[in-house]
């Protein structure tokens, strides 16, 4: 298993390949050469992908970085016309964002963070519950599954409009709680409205991924646990959760990324420039729509760094395994190999 993996690892990351050399001293020179050859082949094969990624990811990223160093075009007071060129301002856009517009920036920053933490936490809880329900065999399961997935299929903009009706001053939400709350005005209630709509829409996403994770857990594990008399909560805690963790972490990571970039839901549901729900993406959009691409890029770059940091922390701390088996180091590989039998052994010996 170990031998078949290394070439694959090299193929995708040729640069990393050399560090795994000492692991296999037994390997003959011939084998190494063959691997190098297939490495070149693999590099050739992935090069179209890399090229496309360079064009659609790397180039725009660098362009945005560059653009963020330019200011807005100025108005010539004599002619009344906007100048043709954008002045180079260095890091002033960033200084302005953190200084002059600092209050707005940090407000948006905390809103973004707050939304991410709260929605992802709620979505995880509800999503896992949904997955457990969808996974159970019962009559009408197909209907329940379809029902749970519907919100995820609704485009965010449409669900924003939908919830705006619900949260209207004389909408269903107010009728249900029997008390008039003006949800779309400034205040904490606006945040609540966004969170409810967001969780409604995206909990099924986590549910779906977790369901996929649940379906690969072998039945024998549960059978063994039942024979040993493990209670349902115990089974969930010691079998389901550890085994579904990789899928769950990937789902949560995706949701975090998405939530950090949240734009359309607060924009449509509550409205533009409402401080209670303004997110970093909305600030970037506001600048861009007023033809100030420099500051807009600066906001985007800051958001990019933030998302990047969160992603990095996520991957490092929680070990969310995004690219599967590729280039895994020995310790991790060992862990993975043991992972499936481990709970069974534990339960059996218990």
């Amino acid at each position: 298993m170990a031998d078949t993996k290394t070439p694959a690892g090299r193929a995708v990351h040729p640069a990393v390949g050399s560090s795994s050399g000492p692991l296999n001293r037994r390997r003959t020179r011939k084998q190494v050469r063959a691997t190098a050859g297939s490495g070149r082949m693999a590099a050739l094969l992935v090069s179209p992908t890399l090229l496309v990624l360079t064009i659609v990811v790397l180039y725009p990223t660098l362009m945005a970085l560059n653009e963020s160093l330019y200011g807005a075009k100025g108005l010539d007071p004599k002619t009344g016309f906007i100048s043709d060129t954008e002045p180079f301002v260095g890091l002033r856009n960033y200084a302005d964002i953190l200084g002059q517009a600092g209050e707005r920036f940090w407000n948006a920053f905390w809103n973004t963070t707050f939304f991410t933490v709260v929605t992802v936490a709620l979505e995880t809880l509800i999503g896992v519950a949904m997955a457990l329900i969808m996974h159970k065999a019962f009559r009408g399961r197909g209907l329940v599954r379809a029902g749970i997935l519907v919100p995820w299929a609704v485009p965010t903009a449409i669900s924003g409009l939908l919830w705006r009706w619900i949260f209207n001053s004389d909408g269903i939400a107010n009728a249900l709680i029997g008390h008039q709350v003006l949800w779309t005005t400034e205040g904490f209630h606006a945040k609540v409205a966004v969170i409810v709509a967001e969780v409604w829409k995206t909990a099924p996403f986590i549910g779906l991924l977790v369901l996929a994770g649940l379906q690969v857990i072998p039945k024998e594990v549960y059978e063994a646990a039942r024979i040993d008399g493990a209670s349902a909560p115990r089974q969930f805690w010691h079998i389901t959760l550890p085994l579904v963790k990789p899928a769950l972490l990937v789902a949560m990571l995706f949701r975090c990324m998405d939530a950090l970039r949240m734009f359309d839901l607060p924009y449509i549901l509550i409205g533009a420039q409402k401080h209670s729900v303004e997110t970093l993406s909305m600030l970037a959009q506001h600048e861009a729509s007023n033809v100030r691409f420099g500051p807009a890029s600066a906001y985007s770059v800051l958001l990019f760094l933030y998302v990047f940091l969160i992603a990095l922390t996520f991957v490092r701390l929680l070990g969310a395994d995004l690219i599967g088996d590729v280039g895994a180091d020995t310790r991790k590989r060992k862990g993975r190999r043991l992972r499936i039998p481990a709970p069974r052994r534990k339960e059996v010996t218990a």
Partner: protein
Amino acid sequence: MKTRITRAFQCSAVLAAAGLLLSACGSSGDDGSGQTGATSFEGRGPITFVAGKDTTGTLQPLLDRWNKLHPKEKVTFIQLPTDADAQRQQMIQNAETKSDAYTVLYLDVVWTSEFAAHRWIDQLPEKQFPLDKMLKPVVETAKYRDGLYAAPSTSDGGMLYYRTDLLKKAGITQPPATWAEMKSACAKVKKLPEAKDMSCYAGQFQKYEGLTVNFSEAVNSAGGTVTDANGKPDVDTAEAKKGLDFLVDSVKDGTIPKEGITYQEEDSRQAFQSGKLVFLRNWPYVYSLAGKSEIAGKYAVAPLPGLNGPGSSSLGGHNLALSSFAKNKATAVDFMKFYTSEESANYFLKEAALAPPYTALYDDQALVKQYPYLPVLKESILRAVPRPRVVQYGDVTAAIQQEAYAALNGSKSSAQALKNLQKDLQQKYAAQ
């Protein structure tokens, strides 16, 4: 361990990069293809007309008529989304890439200054358009720094809708001309048993463009100004405060229902139609819709009330502008003349109820019979003050919404809000 870090780094890099795509479409460094004010309009051939979705179904027949008359200079309709912001964004993108795909643009009146200052649209020969036959405030919306940059096509003004049945029952014969009269009329109406749970008045006070319209109207109707003709702000005045105070006090004392600060055009129309309001400030489009509701035959329109007499409306509507980067500009100018002619305006009024820029049409008896509100609308437009005509309109309207909304929901006093607004607008004016 090293590989692990690299991997983690790679994972997160790929994910995060996706987030940056958001704003990568900016452009920098134009080469300055110096377009100046007086352009010669040359070239004949096919052109395009760019506007939002035509919901009235009246546009294509008009274009067909032009195409029949000018088989070699056909006009193609490029349909943009219904949402005004999306239209503006696409037009700007077209201009930033200097594309000749768009020829004639259907511009919202508040975009004129911005498009003209960026030289995205050409200055037009004033003499070729019958401006003297048009209502003056409408023509003003098409100008930037005394130059004509667009041809007025349609207009729009706010009107006061009121419940004739209730006013009559309460013994009021005339619609109110001032805010005080409106409030006292309300007090009388509310003594009627059927009006016990009604609110008095509403406009559009959600934090969006409609708030800018309503705030400007209140300030102008009290004799104040938001910005002068050159975009210089002067809003921290006693008059402006009286205007804003009218709105703020009305929200406080319940003249405006408390959900009024969530109303956009449609919400306020629904509230009026379902009998929740005695008075409503809205656009002419409400007139025919309300005729199909439960209050049919029980309402009429009047000019907007003000502090000491009739108030002033903001102006809506659209103008035609010529993209600087277009080809076949001679054809384009001819088409604009055709599209904005009195004949076309008459057609649009008859078929689509779009308010014309031409004075004469408002006095046409046949049209007045079809649209009984026309005389009121004419008065409203004649007394109207355009919304701030500034290059950075997006920033100005954002600042207005910010401060006006804070005053309306009570988080700032109106004096403080106006003071902050003046400071904000001054800063933007100075930065220009």
